[in-house]
């Protein structure tokens, strides 16, 4: 499972100091809800990403707790304030203990 998980993040490369930017994130993950059954009628065990966080230079932007009702390939769009140049860090936490990470640098001009 873990090897076909691919995070994709869209962050502008530059911003003005204090500007509010829009960030879009998508991660490929099947988000098995635990409610579905296979062809033999057995319940397929739950396997989802249960938490997503975004930080900028160590300060939190958004922290999302996710439940099985989030769709396959979880997508999030949110706003962040950029006070200085630095790095956005995105972290996804899988039910199975895996942690997926992505980082994006942004320059304040």
């Amino acid at each position, binding site marked *: 499972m873990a090897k076909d998980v691919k995070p994709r993040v869209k962050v502008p490369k530059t911003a003005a100091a204090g500007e*509010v*930017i829009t960030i879009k994130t998508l991660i490929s993950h099947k988000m098995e*809800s635990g*409610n*579905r*059954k296979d062809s033999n009628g057995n319940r397929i065990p739950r396997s989802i990403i249960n938490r997503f966080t975004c*930080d*900028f230079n160590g*300060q*939190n*932007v*958004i*922290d*999302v*707790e*996710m*439940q*099985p*009702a*989030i*769709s*396959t390939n*979880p*997508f*999030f*769009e*949110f*706003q*962040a*304030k950029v*006070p200085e140049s630095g790095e956005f860090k995105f972290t996804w936490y899988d039910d199975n203990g895996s942690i997926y990470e992505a980082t994006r640098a942004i320059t304040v001009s």
Partner: protein
Amino acid sequence: MRLTRRDALALGLGATAASFLPLRAVASAEEAIAAFTGGVEPAEGGVTLNAPEIAENGNTVPVSVEAPGATAIILIATGNPQPGVATFNFGPLAGAQSAATRIRLAGTQEVIAIAKMADGGFARASRVVKVTIGGCGG
């Protein structure tokens, strides 16, 4: 097999529990709200919930929430097997208290957003979404 008094009691309890099952989803939606608000009655307004009126595919329904001045927003799907959807906690660098995502809806139902405000109050908004094909499997 003889039916002992103990067996009869167990059967009766089982039947009572089974008769409560259909009510469970709605009850747990209320529980999920109560767990978030701590029993405080949320006010109407102050939070915007955008969801389509008709969703053709319940597997991926785009929704967005916005609540200026909120510290957290919880999304609840009252008609899903598990009503909780997501909780958005906004940090100090959140540019606006808004977020968009895609959710699964099992059928036509009411989606509720509750925002926890910085002053300790709560705001509530809800939308009914008609779902053509349910998205929770089963």
